[in-house]
Every structure is written in C-alpha cells, then in structure tokens.
C-alpha cells in the first residue's frame, strides 16, 4: 500500500536529548546504532542535545533524559524538558533509579565534599562517620588527596550549582512517559524503542533487549 502523499511532506519528529547526572554512556550507546543514524535522521531532527549547538530546548516530540538528579541545575533542566517535550523518556539506570551515583546516598554530603576537595580528611567525614577509619586516623581517601595544594577548599562560587543532599531518579520530580532500561541500554534497544515510538506503538523490549546492567 502506498502511503498518502502529504502536501508538505511528512514532518520530522523533533527530538531533544540531555545528560543530567549521567556519564554520557547512554548517548554513546545511542550513537552505537552506527549507520542506522543516517536512516534515523530521515525521520527526526535534533533540538537541544549534546550533539547540537542549541542552548535552550524548544517544543519537541520526544525528550531523551540520561542521568539522575544530583544538583540544582539538573532539576531546572529536567523541568524545562518536561515542559517542552510531549513524550519524556528516562534513559538508562541513572535516570530510572538514580543508578550507581545514588550509592552516595548513604554518605554525608558535607563529609564527601570535604574528603574530596580539602587536603586534610575531615574528622566528621563519611569514612570516619561510618567507622571505617578509627577516630583521629587518616582515611585512605584523605591520604590520597594530599596532592591538593595547601588551603584548597570546597568550591563555593554561585556560578556552580549546589549539590542535592541525595541523588534522585527523574520520575520523582516530573512525570515520565517511558523508561528505557540498561546501563546503558544497548544500541539495538535504542533502535527498537525509537522505531516503536516513531511508528506510534507502545515500545516493547523483549528478551535480550531488556537489561538493567
């Protein structure tokens, strides 16, 4: 059956993508669809994305979100995406559950920053607080940080986004339409998922494409 001829041709779907508290691995896995990207680009055009130079997200059909929420800027960007995208997709383990970055959730944030940015390990730092290091002892992490110059401190310029007390998955802040699991989702999972979405089907990942790891 020949498709109906549209007077102006079929409109390409607008797709925006972003990495919040992500590692860019989901974007890399997306690019792993390789030469199928050329076929994809016949049907979609990218709006704001790390792959384009567009600074603000415009009205889009699909928003692909990689990464969880770890700082204030992540939350602002996520809300912008939700407001502009008809369909919002949580891509990868971080966006879906917080992912491995959420393993910091049981540590004290102040202690973590102190351990990383100050040359002396803090006595109240997370390693001390959890009894990993005896009181007064030097934490292994703190010792490794001796390479920092004297007087280094936790960055406090207002230009920098404040870090959230805990890492959160994105569905705890905005409504999410679909989840594409994996760390990262495989290229074939991206391909199958996007083809389903573009065809107006509810995406379905069968055995082999459905992975959390």
């Amino acid at each position, binding site marked *: 059956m020949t498709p109906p001829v549209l007077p102006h041709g079929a409109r390409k779907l607008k797709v925006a993508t972003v990495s919040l508290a992500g590692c860019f691995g989901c974007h890399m896995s997306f690019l792993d669809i390789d030469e199928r990207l050329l076929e994809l680009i016949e049907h979609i055009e990218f709006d704001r994305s790390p792959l384009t130079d567009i600074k603000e997200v415009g009205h889009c059909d699909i928003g692909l979100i990689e990464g969880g929420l770890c700082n204030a800027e992540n939350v602002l960007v996520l809300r912008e995406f939700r407001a502009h995208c008809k369909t919002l997709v*949580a891509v990868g*383990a971080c966006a*879906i*559950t*917080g*992912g*491995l970055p*959420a*393993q910091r*959730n*049981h540590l004290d944030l102040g202690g973590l920053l102190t351990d990383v940015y100050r040359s002396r390990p803090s006595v109240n730092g997370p390693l001390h607080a*959890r009894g990993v290091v005896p009181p007064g002892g030097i934490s292994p992490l703190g010792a490794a940080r001796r390479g920092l110059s004297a007087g280094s401190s936790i960055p406090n310029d207002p230009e920098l986004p404040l870090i959230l007390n*805990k890492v*959160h*998955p994105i*569905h*705890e802040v905005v409504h*999410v339409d*679909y*989840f*594409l*699991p994996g*760390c990262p989702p495989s290229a074939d999972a991206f391909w199958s998922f996007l083809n389903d979405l573009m065809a107006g089907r509810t995406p*379905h*990942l069968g*055995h082999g494409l*459905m*992975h*959390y*790891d």
Partner: protein
Amino acid sequence: MTPDLPKPEGASPSFSLDGEDVPFTPGETLLQAATRAGHYIPHLCWHPEFSAHGSCRVCSVTVNGRPGAACTVHASPGLEVQSNTEELNGHRKTLLQMLFVEGNHFCPSCEKSGNCRLQATAYQMGMEGPHFEEFYPDRPVDASHPDILLDFNRCILCELCVKASRDVDGKNVFAMGGRSLGTHLLVNSESGQLVDTPMALEDRAMDVCPVGVILPKRRGFVIPIGQRHYDEKPVSQWVEEGKE
C-alpha cells in the same frame, strides 16, 4: 469435560491451569505441580527443596475465582487456576517494583546480575521502571568473613538462606529480625558478624539466595556477559524445559 465421570484407574488427578490440564500428586501445591509439569508460574521465595514461605506473593494466582498464592494452595481435582493473565502479571510487576525500590538494586554494579532471579523475573514481567519512590536503605555490608560477603541492602526476605542453613547445613547462621519495614536478615552470632559463625563456602546457604546478598569473595564477574544464566534464556524457558 464431564466432571461426574470417575477418572480411569491409575490416572493421576489434575487441575486446570490457564485452560491446560496439570496432573498432580495428592499433597502437592499448585506451584509444585505446575513447575514439575513445565508450566512457569513466576515465583521468588519458593524453592523446590524447601517448604513454602509465602512472602514474595509473586506466584499469586486466581483459584476458582479467588486470589491465592500458588505456593501454599494445595492442588485438588478440578480446580480452575488462572496465572498468565494480563491482570495477574500486572500485579506481579507492581510487587517486583516494590521489591526493587525497597532495596538498593543497582544491577550495573552487582555481581549477581545476569544470574539473579529477581532481575530475571522483572525482565519476564516487562518491568521497565521502578514506578515507586526509592527507599535507598543503608544497611552496612558484612565483610567480616574471610571468604564470604553479605550485602543486606539487596535482601528480599525470602528466608531461603535461613532454611538452608538451619535444615540442610545444620548451622543456623541466619535469622529474620525486626518488624514491618524494619524487618531484616541478621546473622546469628553474639557479635552479629558472619566471621563469628561456622559459615563456609560449601554451605547450601551459599547458593540458595535468589538475589545478590550472599556472595563468595574474589569471585565476582567471572562469567562473561552473554553466558550468564539468564542471558541464555528467560526464566520462564528454564522452567518450561524442566531445568530450574
């Protein structure tokens, strides 16, 4: 089918599971009979070698129109059981999502990934996301034992290790403590540490855990991706082939 006719001599009684006849031996539960006959009813806390526990509820079915756990309902002739329906699988997905948010199931860094029954069952039920808010529990790891590691944040309270250690190993290493949301797996030693128990790598309790709580040290990530148990085929297929 005419229910009034007596069964021919020697034929085993049967019940109906999703419209198919499943033979059973008197005394068997629905789940035992179904699994033996190669029918997959999703389950986590049931293991063929141990008594039913009934905590995970993933095997919930409809028996003659009423809900029941397939692991505890005894088979009887002529029962009409529904298991593989959209509604029941939807309930199962919700139960799995509850288990996932209750623990720290960070599969990408878990040594059990690919060999984990919880994960495989979630794949089977098409669980794409967690739906509920994450709990992010903070139960310290027990790394006191020279050969064995315990990560309590992955425990789904199935009690299989408790039974295996008590009934098979005769060591009684594990127990359940606390109430309600505070319920947790604990180690039966005065210090509460695994090193102060007779637990050993050869114990049956080592490999009954359906998730990644009880792990041998220095042996993680030895199976290449693609060759792990549930990489090969989904959990339903293992059961249907009678190999699990």
